């Protein structure tokens, strides 16, 4: 019985009149109905969890040393979304984070700057101002981050607010409740609506949209693959693992599944989507494992801050310590990087 699942969803009744934008070819018909979308997502090949773990374990043993390590560290630094998402954030803290984003290692001018600073929406303006003229993006989390438990109207207002504040990138959370309950078309529709809300006032393009799947709450890798496809079909520019507020956050198998999803999506549609693991990546070793995994599974096309980001706060300090070690030849210590 079509439409049955939406009896409790007031939005569903009004859906008749306004058709959803169609996903990219050749998937333009998969969202024609709930049943079709579910059939498509559940028809994606299953993920072998044991196999995924074994594969990432093997990739984790690659030995990256000397010049390759130096390259990996600099690349990883340039991919960092330097993040602060605490209730206690202040404009001063955001400004000091912006200063660090600009010049992560003040003792060494050859150190690259990071990709973006990620803050709550109300502080996007502060970050934007502090980063003016640097080319570093301002990313803001929105849509009732981190739980996503608010009405559609509130979520969209949250997004518009952050975009108006100057955010170049919006990190939204999907409605995991709807996803787990099987209301995939609702989740799809919401991402589409948020993407529309990312449009900047005055027709100046729109903010990049990163879709947070919160893989720790999706439980299975099959769900991660489905959510990845859902987010890509809905037009997300990036798919992001987690909010960082839930454990487990970004794990290598989850990231592997997402990387394969973006690769398959590009093969099918010709459209490239980025990946952002966030939360739980604290050491240079973890970051290098991710870079190795990109290179050996989806290829070097994703080895750029335009297509891969690390959502992290403490990772940057560890990258800097390792960088100092390579430069000076002796081990550095936490006294030689800033306290965030």
């Amino acid at each position: 019985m079509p439409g049955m699942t939406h009896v409790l969803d007031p939005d569903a009744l009004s859906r008749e009149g306004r058709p959803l934008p169609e996903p990219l070819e050749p998937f333009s018909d998969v969202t024609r109905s709930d049943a079709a979308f579910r059939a498509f997502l559940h028809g994606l090949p299953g993920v072998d969890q044991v196999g995924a773990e074994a594969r990432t374990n093997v990739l984790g043993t690659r030995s990256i040393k000397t010049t390759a390590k130096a390259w990996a560290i600099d690349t990883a630094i340039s991919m960092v979304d330097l993040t602060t998402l605490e209730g206690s954030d202040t404009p001063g803290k955001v400004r000091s984070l912006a200063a660090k984003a600009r010049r992560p290692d003040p003792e060494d001018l050859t150190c690259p700057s990071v990709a973006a600073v990620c803050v709550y929406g109300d502080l996007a303006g502060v970050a934007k101002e502090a980063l003016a003229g640097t080319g570093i993006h301002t990313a803001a989390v929105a849509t009732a981050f981190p739980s996503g438990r608010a009405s559609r109207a509130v979520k969209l207002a949250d997004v518009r607010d952050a975009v108006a504040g100057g955010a170049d990138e919006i990190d939204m959370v999907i409605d995991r409740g709807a996803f787990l309950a099987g209301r995939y078309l609702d989740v799809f529709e919401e991402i589409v609506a948020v993407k529309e809300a990312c449009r900047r006032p005055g027709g100046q393009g729109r903010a990049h949209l990163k879709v947070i799947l919160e893989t720790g709450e999706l439980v299975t890798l099959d769900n991660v693959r489905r959510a990845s496809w859902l987010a890509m079909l809905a037009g997300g520019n990036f798919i992001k693992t987690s909010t960082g507020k839930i454990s487990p956050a970004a794990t290598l198998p989850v990231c592997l599944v997402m990387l394969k999803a973006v690769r398959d999506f590009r093969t099918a549609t010709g459209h490239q989507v980025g990946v952002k693991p966030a939360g739980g990546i604290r050491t240079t070793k973890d970051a290098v494992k991710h870079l190795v995994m990109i290179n050996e599974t989806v290829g070097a096309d994703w080895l750029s801050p335009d297509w891969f980001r690390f959502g992290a706060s403490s990772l940057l300090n560890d990258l800097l310590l390792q960088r100092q070690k390579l430069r000076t030849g002796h081990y550095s210590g936490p006294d030689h990087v800033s306290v965030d």
Partner: protein
Amino acid sequence: MNADRLTVRKTYKLYLGGAFPRSESGRTYEVTDAKGHFLANAAWASRKDARDAVVAARAAFGKWSGATAYNRGQVLYRVAEVMEGRAAQFAEEVAAGEGLSATRARAAVDAAIDRWVWYAGWTDKLAAVLGSSNPVAGPYFGFSMPEPTGVVAVLAPQRSSLLGLVSVLGPVLAGGNTAVVISSKQCPLPAVTLGEVLATSDVPGGVVNLLTGDAAEIGPWLAEHADVDGIDLAGTSGPLAMELERSAAGTVKRVLRAAAEEPDWTADPGLARMTPFLETKSVWHPMGV
């Protein structure tokens, strides 16, 4: 003992962050007694083990230095109690490794346990002896008090494998520092056993990290390490000691120089090994009404 029984050959590990990992390098070396007979395999620590040990010691520093001096004394005394229970094993290892008679080895172990108790007693007396209430020309109090330096690398004596080790580790811990120790290379087994003692007493993991291996190999990495605040060069001598002292200067470490010859560890140690790893903090306080 049953003559048919196969002996269990031992391959010891490091004591690092409260756990017993193998060396990151996977290396081990054979430990022999004074006559060259095989005793056991010991882990041969690498520079990365030293790096991990420093991270563990730094993580443990806050809790250990923040504990009350009285509590530190209790915890260290408990270590002496556990050592006492293991005295026979220590004596056997010291006798084999240093080539001492059973009686003299036992005497060295007793002296080591007594030395540990002695340092345990000092924890809450240091502030009274080394601190002061300073005369100042104003309506203020001025106080000076000793505080721990931080993470201290200890290159333990090469010959005196237990008494020497305790004599250099005790003063570092009593002041509230955490330690990364490189044991005697020739005779590491008492250090390994001390690690087992520490793991089964109340000393928090990471406060003492015991690496078995070559001080000449790992020492330079610790001397240059920016997160090591002090280094005790007791187990080195000659050009190596000079070299380590020079590289320690790059990060302005506290350096306790090695004596020209390994000293007689049975002598009364006094405060000489405690004060180098204590910083004096002075505070001014307005006088009450």
